[in-house]
């Protein structure tokens, strides 16, 4: 999993049926110091995350499909947690 910051929302009317009713959020993967890492991704949200929150994302199809609760969904990224705090002892 990776830490990311929710930076925006996406609206799409025409989409695969697996996305019906799903919330699509733009997330920017970040390092431990909150600096951006790599491109902005689009993830389905299964935990009620909102813009500016720090979240935990999975970037793998099966895990994302499970988070969405739909088998065989063409998804590859999902938000699976909202981060309260990260503590690194190094």
């Amino acid at each position: 999993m990776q830490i990311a910051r929710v930076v925006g929302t996406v609206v799409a009317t025409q989409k695969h049926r697996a996305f019906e009713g799903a919330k699509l959020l733009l997330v920017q993967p970040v390092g431990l110091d909150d600096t951006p890492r790599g491109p902005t991704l689009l993830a389905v949200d299964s935990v009620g995350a909102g813009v500016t929150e720090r979240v935990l994302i999975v970037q793998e199809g099966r895990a994302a499909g499970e988070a969405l609760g739909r088998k065989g969904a063409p998804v590859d990224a999902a938000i699976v947690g909202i981060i309260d705090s990260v503590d690194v002892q190094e």
Partner: protein
Amino acid sequence: MQMARVIGDVVATRKDEALAGITLLVIQPIGADGANVGRTLVAVDSVGAGVGETVFFVRGKEASFPFHPTEVPTDAGIVGIVDHWDVE
């Protein structure tokens, strides 16, 4: 998934049988600010996207899921057309 702009299409007459009848589009991934990010790639389309539109696409094996039970040999697929997006 990632957002992308559709910038072209690909025609290939001789190809894997499972790709027959499937639209192949050239897409340019973009970031939240709409600027190009990374390399262009070719993706299969299952939502009727066209050149000039902003879409979102999935990478990996999941790109073939919209064509189930046909096992389409692809690693990228457009799965939605973006109406608009907001960044805060």
